[in-house]
Each structure stands twice: as C-alpha cells, then as structure tokens.
C-alpha cells in the first residue's frame, strides 16, 4: 500500500516537472529581456530538473526490481537533484552579474541605479 502511494507521488512529481519544463521553454521565447529570461531558466532548472529527479528516485524505491538497481538509481537521482538545486541558481546569478558588468546584455528599464552608483548616467 505504501509502495503504491510512493509510486503515485513520484509519478505526479515527474509529470508536473515535465509540464513546468515545457512552460519554461515557452517562456524562453516569450520573455523580452535576458534578465527576465533568468526566471524562465530557474523554472526550467528547479521545476524541470529538481522535482522530476526526486520523483524518479521515489519511483525507483517503490518498484519491484533488483535491490542493487533500486539503491543505485535512487541514490544517483538524489545526488543529481542536490547538485542541480545548489548549482543552477548560483550559476544563473554569476551569469547575470557577468552579463551586466561586461555590457553583453542590456536591461530594458527606465532608470538604472546600479549604473548611477558606478558613475554612469542612470537614464
């Protein structure tokens, strides 16, 4: 009984993750600015990577397969989920900082206080 509940929780997490992933990929085209597209990238990483990996780990724990495959699969999925949850937001922040300071991506805004602080004009 508990196995069936775990299985359906994992299945729900994985399918919700797939839907969120498609939403994020559409957001990459719909959003106007690099700094707005960072939101879509976060939805794609946490919603489309973290949740499905947790779900797959739970599914692997509930199946009636070989115990070695079960342990290996759920362990690898959990470690990959933790690496994604820690690494991708930090990477997005580093990338946004580099893109702003190198002038590669210009934000679509009316007033830029950070540029004022650095000595430029804020308009």
């Amino acid at each position: 009984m508990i196995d069936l509940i775990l299985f359906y929780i994992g299945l729900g997490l994985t399918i919700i993750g797939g839907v969120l992933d498609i939403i994020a990929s559409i957001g990459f085209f719909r959003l106007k600015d690099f700094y707005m597209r960072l939101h879509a990238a976060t939805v794609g990483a946490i919603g489309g990577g973290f949740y499905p990996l947790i779900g797959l780990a739970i599914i692997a724990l509930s199946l009636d397969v070989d115990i070695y495959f079960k342990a290996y699969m759920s362990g690898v999925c959990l470690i990959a989920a933790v690496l994604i949850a820690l690494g991708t937001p930090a990477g997005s922040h580093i990338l946004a900082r580099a893109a702003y300071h190198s002038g590669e991506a210009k934000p679509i805004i009316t007033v830029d206080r950070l540029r004022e602080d650095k000595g430029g004009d804020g308009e």
Partner: protein
Amino acid sequence: MVEYGLLELFLPFMAGLFTTAMIIYSARILTSKTLPDAVLAVDALSVDLVVILAIIALYYRSPLLLIGVIPLAAWIFLLDLIIARYLLKR
C-alpha cells in the same frame, strides 16, 4: 512492491514531455542573439538531459546508463562559471 509494468505505461509519456521541452530549448539556442542567452538555454538543456538519462535508465533497467548523470549535473555550474569569467576578463 509496485509492478514494473505499471511504470512502463507512463514512461513514454514522461519522455515525450521532456523531449518536447528539449526541442524547444534547442530552437532557442540556435536563434539566440547573445552569448549569455545561449548559455542559459544550454543550462536548461543539460538539466533536461540529466532527467532524460535517468528516465532511459529506468526504462532499460540498466544502472550503467546512470554513470554520466552526476558529472553532467556538476558540469552545469562549471559551464556558468567559465562563461562568466570569459565575459568579465574579455
């Protein structure tokens, strides 16, 4: 224990969802104007690739397919770091 056949019913549907998202991300990489945009899309594509690899390993019930998952998940952060250093040092 849940029967494996019950999961086999849902696995192609999950793989289809993630494959659709991967195709749209690939189109985004090919049409992006600047370097940070392309790197952001490559990040999302790599996350999807991790999930697809796990789904394929579950489908074939082979642990050998999971070898590349953890280095790929660590590579995503490393790629961001390298590109950020390249953009700032340029």
